[in-house]
């Protein structure tokens, strides 16, 4: 076992707020240059660019974890991470049915490009992917767990779409696998500000919408760079460990 550096919150050009540089080959080379060995691709309410990033990473030592940043009914952003694409397609079907029917306005929100592994344009998603999905946070967490995934509220300290700002506190009957804190926050500062979070494993996320924010501020002491091992590390099971690089 050894430490693997990980960044579990990365957007691609499919997220309207992401910069056009967030294409598969640049994400992959940028992560590798920084010594990051695991990244999760977590676009807003969509998984359409994950296979392209996985293809771009073939032949490298970078592991791509399939994920999604789901917007729940309460407008809480929830990172949903999976071992393979298959369970994520089930979540995607639910999202496609239950997402607010709003059309994207690229001039306000940004483009939503689906691209191939070289970053070439395939199509644009016409729906506004920033819309909410008609599922409560509690039901979303339960559904992700049913599918064998990890459910991690994103940037819980943020005013926009953070769990604490939108719900007031962390409901203690939610079986959250970890909580993500923003890149500019330290664990000490966060636990002083929100004592309730002491009970949860913490993840530090770059919430990368630009290449420079692929930060990899997490060390996972694990056997293999995969999603199951990350789950074990959050629980400190079988000598697996997780540590934030503050």
């Amino acid at each position, binding site marked *: 076992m050894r430490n693997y550096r990980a960044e579990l919150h990365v957007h691609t050009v499919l997220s309207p707020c992401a910069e056009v540089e967030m294409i598969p080959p640049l994400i992959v080379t940028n992560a590798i240059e920084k010594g990051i060995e695991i990244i999760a691709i977590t676009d807003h309410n969509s998984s359409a660019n994950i296979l392209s990033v996985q293809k771009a990473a073939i032949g490298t030592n970078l592991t791509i974890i399939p994920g999604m940043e789901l917007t729940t009914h309460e407008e809480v952003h929830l990172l949903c991470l999976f071992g393979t694409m298959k369970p994520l397609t089930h979540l995607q079907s639910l999202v496609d049915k239950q997402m607010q029917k709003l059309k994207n306005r690229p001039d306000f929100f940004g483009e939503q490009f689906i691209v191939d592994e070289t970053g070439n344009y395939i199509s644009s998603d016409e729906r506004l992917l920033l819309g909410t999905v008609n599922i409560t946070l509690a039901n979303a967490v339960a559904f992700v767990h049913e599918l064998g995934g990890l459910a991690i509220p994103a940037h819980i300290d943020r005013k*926009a779409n953070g769990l604490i700002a939108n719900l007031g506190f962390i409901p203690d009957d939610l079986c959250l696998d970890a909580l993500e804190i923003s890149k500019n926050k330290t664990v000490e500062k966060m636990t002083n500000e929100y004592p309730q979070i002491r009970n949860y494993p913490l993840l530090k996320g770059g919430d990368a919408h630009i290449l420079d924010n692929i930060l990899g501020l997490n060390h996972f002491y694990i056997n293999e760079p995969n999603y199951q091992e990350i789950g074990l590390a959050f629980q400190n099971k079988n000598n697996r460990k997780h540590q934030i690089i503050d």
Partner: protein
Amino acid sequence: MNLQDIVDQLDLNPYTQGKPLNTIEPSGGYTSDLLSCVMAGAKQGNIWITLQAHVNIVAVAALLDLSAVVITEGAQPDTATIERALEQNITLLGTNQPSYLVAGKLWEMGLKSG
């Protein structure tokens, strides 16, 4: 009734002015702090009352062509929000009053359509 009347009567603090306030007549009002509700429910020209002060409110106001956003409860928009509002000609007005009172006062002034 134009925005200048509203600003005067409710003693609002204009952070930004999209256009001269006395040239804008709100079509009605809308109150919610969930941006998704606003996107689905507010109508063009509405004045939107919310305690949210983050940058996303500007995109929503621009998208729907709202007449103004009244940020309540003393919430402070940060520099990024104000800059974006200036870019997009969005009027942001601030007050320490709670949303309920602001809506009530606008109703009393005669702004009764949703």
